[in-house]
């Protein structure tokens, strides 16, 4: 009953590399703001250690436990999401009331909801597997719950997390093998609402397309992506070398968070990017392998839902950084600075690892 060690160690390697890159990309800002170059890396280091311990512990908790407690977990998430909206309890950071503050640390209930929702959805889908022929009955109830949570998260607002949850869970529903027509209809609804939004306020189209040519508004909507391209472009094949990024010198804002991938690109070049993306793909591949090998439907949905959520967030972040989609404000799992985000990601891997123990080889 061994856990998947490839997945386990790849996750740790990626998280350690993340902390190192947080140091490299943040020390300029950290010295400037706090007079302490190590401010961010120490914070993240603590969470890294806690995260690894947490991941190891959770990998020993039988995943059936979540199946039993799915309702309570989701209710807990719901209560936290409501509480965080109340001024005085929830703390506003970067324009969203999405934090519970504990000193300098913070907890985002929307991050926790990711896990809660995947567990609940996985259980619902596996329990009602027989209903899946009747799409309406099978899909609409869970869709209602998803939209409820999305609505709560959008009240904060935290568009990035909301979108990750909605998309990942819809893909999870897709996995069950239910009729495709529901997705076509959902797509139609989405498209019509986007068109409606654009007709109501045409400037939105401009904002959406501005990522195609960031130089059309270099100091506004194009600013971050231009700064990101200035980091990636000059990196070349091998990059400037560790610690030698120039864009982190007050050009790229908060380089240790959403745009840390550009700093990796600047310091380690194309080769570094290739290795990092390969590690992400390796993690996803191991998870998919576990999902396919398990014969417990709940476990299958659980593993796929969690791993797809991680990889979807990864793709979203990378595509923003390289200028393929508009800026959404999503961090890079395991790498970007952020304690609660790291803990949640490690927890997810921990749950997946537990499933891997049950798989017989």
């Amino acid at each position: 009953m061994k856990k998947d060690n490839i997945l386990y160690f790849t996750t740790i390697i990626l998280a350690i590399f993340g902390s190192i890159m947080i140091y490299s990309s943040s020390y300029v800002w950290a010295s400037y703001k706090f007079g302490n170059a190590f401010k961010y890396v120490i914070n993240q280091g603590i969470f890294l250690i806690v995260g690894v311990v947490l991941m190891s512990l959770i990998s020993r908790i039988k995943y059936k436990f979540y199946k039993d407690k799915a309702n309570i977990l989701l209710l807990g998430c719901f209560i936290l999401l409501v509480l965080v909206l109340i001024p005085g309890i929830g703390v506003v950071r970067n324009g969203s009331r999405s934090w519970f503050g504990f000193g300098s640390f913070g907890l985002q209930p929307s991050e926790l909801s990711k896990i809660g929702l995947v567990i609940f959805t996985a259980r619902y889908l596996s329990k009602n597997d027989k209903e899946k022929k009747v799409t309406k009955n099978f899909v609409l109830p869970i869709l209602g719950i998803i939209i409820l949570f999305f609505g709560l998260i959008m009240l904060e607002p935290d568009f990035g997390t909301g979108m990750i949850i909605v998309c990942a869970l819809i893909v999870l529903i897709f996995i069950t093998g239910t009729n495709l027509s529901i997705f076509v209809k959902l797509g139609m609804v989405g498209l019509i609402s986007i068109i409606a939004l654009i007709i109501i306020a045409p400037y939105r189209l401009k904002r959406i397309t501005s990522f195609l040519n960031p130089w059309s508004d270099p100091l506004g909507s194009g600013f971050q992506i231009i700064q990101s391209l200035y980091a990636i472009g000059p990196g070349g094949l091998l990059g400037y070398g560790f610690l030698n990024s120039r864009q982190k010198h007050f050009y790229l804002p908060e380089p240790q968070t959403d745009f840390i991938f550009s700093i990796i690109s600047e310091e380690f070049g194309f080769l570094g990017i290739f290795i990092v993306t390969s590690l992400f793909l390796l993690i996803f591949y191991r998870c998919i392998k576990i999902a396919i090998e398990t014969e417990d439907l709940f476990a299958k949905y659980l593993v796929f839902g969690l791993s797809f959520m991680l990889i979807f967030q990864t793709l979203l972040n990378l595509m923003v950084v390289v200028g393929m989609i508009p800026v959404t404000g999503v961090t890079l799992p395991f790498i970007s600075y952020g304690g609660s985000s790291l803990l949640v990601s490690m927890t997810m891997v921990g749950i997946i690892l537990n499933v891997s123990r049950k798989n017989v080889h």
Partner: protein
Amino acid sequence: MFQSVQNGRIKMVFILVVVIFILIVLRVFYIQVIEYEKLNTLAENLWSRNLPVQADRGKILDRNGKVIAGNETTSTLVLIPNQIKNKEEVAKSLSEILGVSYEEMLKHVSKRTSIERVHPEGRDLSYEVADKINSYGYDGVYLLKETKRYYKYDDLLAHVIGYVGIDNQGLSGLELLYDKYLTGTDGSIKYFSDGKGNKLSMPEVYVAPQSGMNINLTIDLDLQLVLENELNNAAKKYNAEGAIGIVMNPNTGEVMAMSSRPTFSPINYQNYSVETINRNLAIWSSFEPGSTFKILTLTAAINEGVVNVFEDTYYDSGHINVSGSNLHCWKTEGHGTQTYVQVVENSCNPGFVVLGQKLGKERLFEYIDRFGFGSKTGIDLNGESNGIIFDLDRVGPLELATTAFGQGVSVTAIQQVNAVSTIINGGNMYTPYIVSSISEDETGIIIEEFKPKLKKENVIKKETSELVKYVLESVVANGSGHHAYIEGYRVGGKTGTAQKVGSDGHYMVGNYILSFMGFIPANDPQFVVYIAVDGAKGVTQYGGTVSAPIAGSVMKSLINLYDIKSDPEGMPRAYMWYETKYVTVPDVINMSKKDAVQALVGFQVEYSGSGDNVVSVSPSPGSRVKEGSIVKLMLN
């Protein structure tokens, strides 16, 4: 298999994720390889701050490489407030060194700007001041080289050179015409900074400025200095309204010197009227040439064979009647019977009227056109005029008559010089030019070279050319041009006295352009010299008395500068009773004392030594001395 639907869809999603990963990696590859150049340049611009280092403007040099327009280098103080750490201390030191108040200097060093300059105290810093500032070694305090146009000889060749504006950009003359070549590429000191403007600890990159190209002229600086000096003297002596001087090589079209009055100082060009700074009178001013134009009539008449200048004679009564109008000769009582050589020597107007009539209007005007009058010479300068020539249809007998002696046409000085050059060089017309080459400053490599440009060949017969040269040499030796005569050298030329047309369209009284067109050596001309003085006052109004001596001085300088050899073959000078006569010392060496004294009639003879045999003579035989000079004989 059990759950095969789910597993199939999971694999589908996995493949989709792999594809998106591949797209992202390809996108990164695209950014780092395809867009590398563009992004790298943009990013470098973002990271680096450039402190400009001014490039020297190309020099303008004379034909021997002597600098006419050069550069002056100074230092300018440049502050980068972001890099200055101790603002109070820096402000205090700088305010003491530059003599600016502390408060003002503190404002400069604290200003929120990337680059700050201190005007005007921080510009044009002397070496000592710059050194003092440097010795502190403050961060963010830079001294940058600046360069300014410098005209060593002030107004020399001003109209040709032109002037530059405050940013060293050419505004007129050659400075404007060749601005593209003269302008260098500025260099820079490039340092890297962070997003807040602080200097990063990366090495500075120095990009050396590249000087502009040098423009090499056909002008001879020494000769130009002589010409400028002569025109200055003339303008002062005669209180003249204007003056023009041109020296050109008739065999190539190279302009050796060119000047005009009024002139200006290019550095202070703002202090002069627009007319003064923008009109290069030597090529712009078009005026009635007067008698110098007779060279053309003479040449046409000889070339067409309508006159034998030695044998044909003309009786001048002092005036000639043309279609009812009486045209006077300058000598009221007339010159009497003259050969046509004498007609030219005397500059006799009625004689030229007859030459014009012999040619007829078609032939005379065809020659005018052939020698380039009425159209630009094509000299490589801005602002040339065409001049004005009668329309052939409107030429009646009177117009033909006056044109023959140089009235009623309007020509530029450069047109005349070019026409006479063509006549005396054997009949080849060259395009006058002043820029001989463009070269790189550091290496001296010639980028572009300008060779003499033959415009028309065999404009006249060789024999005509020889004959005209002979007659014009005789004008200087025996006629109106004698003030340009140089003892022992062969000089040819023709004077000109033209009445000016006033604003009312009539000739002005007592206001003339006095000119002289000369060349040396007369038998094989190397230089054409043209001098015109406009509106001279307080002097006999003849070209012979005002402009011929100036041309004579310029030619004497040419003899020195170009080491022109004395030529005893030249025509002896005809002397007026009031003039000193020059004679040749005869060879009396080895003669007996008695024979020697006989040979030396007209000299004051002194002896040294005792004996009856002459062993040496001083001055040596063959020298030209004043009549009645002392000749010393050494006897043995």
